């Protein structure tokens, strides 16, 4: 804490390597973090950032390389060793226990046996000091994602760490919540603590961080002062080449026919921790991409299930697909009407992980393409399925190791290209996509976004649910915001600003669109 800026670095990593089977996730990585700096670790999905920090936190064991802490060589064999050294971590996919209270969650990561009540008290005072409101007795399962992150941060701070690692902390926050987080982080820096900040969001890195280390394909490819770079130059370092910008041709002048209509959709919570949907109205016209923004866990998953027909409604006309009342139909019948769906979770929902790509093709198209794929007596026509699989693979440029590999063996980006391609191959007139490019590398993401825009401009209605505001601004003709199971009125893209959307995401300006207000949704 008292160290001078040019003193011994807090953490020094030399030649750290981690190998998973055939994949070298981290290849001779070097990293130096000084006392009292916010250091950015930049890189695309799959660049090896998470693997690197897991080794620093002792969750993973490096194959080779050295770590020096305060100038002394250390071996971080487990998270408890990391905690003893003074390294704290806030995980991207939180390491919290839904069935336990916030205080119990905090207690679990503390080595000493302080009584829960005392921990709750400490947490409460710490949360006051840093302006992170928190109820220690609340059950984690009942909390929003933002609140959960606060638990993680307070849990981390209670261990009085010297180095705090944050893995993609703003991916679950509204822009306003992110601002608050930055204030907290700057305060921690002022107290002399070091922060390793992992992100792929270039704006916030430029705003917040003192130095940046950039990783690509498991290797460190550069260091820089992010405040002296432009977003474009940072992106080039991350990706290794220029990413082709997504082109969005103007939407058709006259508004198209409403291919997808959602008229007063409500849904009771299905499980103990799920969100109810409250009177949602939305129409998606032909030729347009409509985006739904929102912080994770505000009902997007429940909404997707209701629209796809995995969960049916009580009344037929709540969902209209190409004018037909589809509320009572299951997912197969909705597909037969011309709708297609891509869920958020690729493995285990959109695709069966241990099945081949051709089997996964059959998964969503056995009914719509029954003539081509299923013969007499229910016999599966493997040859024509295989041909269609290879067609999609080449159309979407899916990279794979075998002719027909298991879905789980593909990288996230390639599997997502296949899953999107599987639906595009049908030329659906309605496409509903939840998180189209979550965890996907920049090249694949651009390709997917372009394909979705082209589908819309070809006369289909495309509904995109996403937590990534940049993505929505890039693709959408109008953006609505989902908050706590309610959907705002769609805002035409010309009138939408990040501030306005961010406020809606945070729950300001509540109120769902009344049917009459729908007239206002046609973009300028």
């Amino acid at each position, binding site marked *: 804490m008292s160290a001078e800026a040019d003193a011994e670095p807090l953490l020094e990593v030399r030649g750290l390597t981690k190998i998973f*089977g055939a994949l070298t996730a981290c290849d001779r990585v070097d990293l130096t973090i000084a006392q009292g700096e916010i250091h950015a670790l930049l890189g695309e999905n799959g660049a090896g950032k998470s693997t690197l920090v897991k080794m620093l936190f002792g969750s993973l064991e490096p194959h080779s390389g050295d770590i020096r802490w305060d100038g002394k060589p*250390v071996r971080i064999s487990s998270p408890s060793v990391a905690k003893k050294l003074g390294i704290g971590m806030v995980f991207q996919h939180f390491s919290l226990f839904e069935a336990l209270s916030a205080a119990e969650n905090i207690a679990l990561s503390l080595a000493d046996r302080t009584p829960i009540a005392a921990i709750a008290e400490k947490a409460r005072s710490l949360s006051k000091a840093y302006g992170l409101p928190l109820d220690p007795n609340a059950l984690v399962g009942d909390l929003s994602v933002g609140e959960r992150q606060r638990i993680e941060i307070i849990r981390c701070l209670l261990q009085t760490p010297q180095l705090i690692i944050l893995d993609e902390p703003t991916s679950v926050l509204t822009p306003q919540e992110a601002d608050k987080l930055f204030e907290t982080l700057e305060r921690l820096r002022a107290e002399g603590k070091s922060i390793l900040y992992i992100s792929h969001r270039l704006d916030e890195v430029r705003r917040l961080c003192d130095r940046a280390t950039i990783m690509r394909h498991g290797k460190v490819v550069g260091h820089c002062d992010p405040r002296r770079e432009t977003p474009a130059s940072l992106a080039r370092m991350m990706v290794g080449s220029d990413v082709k910008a997504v082109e969005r041709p103007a939407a058709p002048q006259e508004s198209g026919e409403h291919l997808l209509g959602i008229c007063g959709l409500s849904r009771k919570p299905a499980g103990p921790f799920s969100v109810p949907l409250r009177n949602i109205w939305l129409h998606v016209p032909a030729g347009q991409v409509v985006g739904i923004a929102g912080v994770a866990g505000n009902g997007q998953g429940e909404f997707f299930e209701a629209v796809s027909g995995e969960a049916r409604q009580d009344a037929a006309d709540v969902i209209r697909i190409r004018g037909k009342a589809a509320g009572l139909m299951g*997912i197969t019948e909705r597909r037969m009407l011309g709708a297609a769906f891509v869920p958020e979770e690729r493995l285990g929902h959109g695709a069966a992980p*241990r099945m081949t790509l051709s089997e996964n093709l*059959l998964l969503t198209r056995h009914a719509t393409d029954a003539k081509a794929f299923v013969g007499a007596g229910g*016999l*599966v026509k493997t040859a024509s399925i295989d041909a269609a699989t290879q067609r999609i693979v080449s159309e979407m440029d899916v990279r794979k190791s075998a002719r027909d590999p298991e879905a789980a063996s593909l990288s996230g980006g390639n599997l997502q290209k296949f899953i999107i391609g599987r639906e595009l191959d049908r030329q659906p007139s309605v496409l509903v996509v939840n998180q189209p490019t979550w965890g996907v590398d920049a090249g694949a993401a651009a390709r997917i976004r372009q394909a979705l825009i082209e589908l819309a401009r070809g006369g289909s209605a495309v509904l995109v649910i996403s937590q990534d505001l940049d993505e929505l601004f890039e693709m959408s003709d109008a953006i609505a915001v989902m908050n706590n199971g309610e959907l705002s009125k769609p805002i035409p893209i010309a009138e939408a600003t990040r501030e306005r959307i961010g406020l809606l995401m945070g729950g300001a300006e509540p109120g769902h669109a009344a049917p009459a207000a729908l007239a206002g949704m046609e973009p300028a």
Partner: protein
Amino acid sequence: MRIELVKRPQQSTLFSVLSPLIALALTMVAGGILFAAMGKNPFEALYYYFVDPLRELWSLHELAIKAAPLILIAVGLSVCYQSNNWNIGAEGQFVIGGIAGSMLPVLFPEFQNGFVLPLMLLMGMAGGALYAAIPALLKTRFNTNEILTSLMLVYVAQLFLDWLVRGPWRNPQGNNFPETRRFHADAVLPELMPADGRANWGIVFAVVAAILVWVLAARTMKGFEVRVLGASPRAGRFAGFSAARMVFFAFMLSGALAGLAGISEVSGAIGQLRPSISPGYGFTAIIVAFLGRLNPLGIVAAGLVLALTYLGGEAAQISLGVSDKVARVFQGLLLFFVLGCDTLIHYRIRLVWPAKAVPAGEGA
């Protein structure tokens, strides 16, 4: 030292084939050690278990008799387990199948013609299927754990059979023995080659069922549905498949096959109902299903192997004076090894010794 599993990027085809064989070999080794510990010559004992019963024609017929119910039940169970429905009550469905099919010859002994046997077989299948539908109904309607309910129903079925043969269905001319009247000729499952041995049509049913279910599982949409719903239920629902209907399909198919096995056993090998009509076929078939890697064709081979342990147990008891209970130990061991070896299909196993040089954790 610790065991570390490294996930393979793809399932290993090599180990899908090898794993049951490795498991068999390991069982032999473990069995050999067991015999040596009991003071027997392990080679001689293994010979009686696995070779001796294969040396004579009549004995091969006995093998077929024992293998038939095991294969029939296990083929049905393979569909259940593939679809992630844990029916472990096949023993009860076997018993109810036997009872349902026996209604004709026991209650209507004067009804004798060529229709009797086909009707009995159909009634046996229906009985087994309906009995298996109970846990399916409870699972889909009330979310009740099917493992526990299907097993509880085994005890209920056995007690029901016990009551029948000691009570209302007892043979009036049977000197108070707890058994029904012997089935008349039209109600007996014919032997295949009476000149050589006792094997009856049961083994034919078993092989035909195995082939049909194999085609269903490997080549049709229904089989695809079974695998998707079993491996990733959420993806199955996304595909538009109904998990609830699958529960009924899997349970009733396996119940019907267990019921067919039950009535085939009663009308073929036994010829009447007794308080006990199965030496645990319904449970041994669980081992058969896993040893056959839930593949109906593999199950035919696995059924023959497990049938051999029954015969071998008898042979070893006669020749070596080893308890026939040893056969069940063999069966249990085999299942353990099969499950352990199956891990090799999805994982490589690495043994890790702790690093020798351990630098101090706190920079001492």
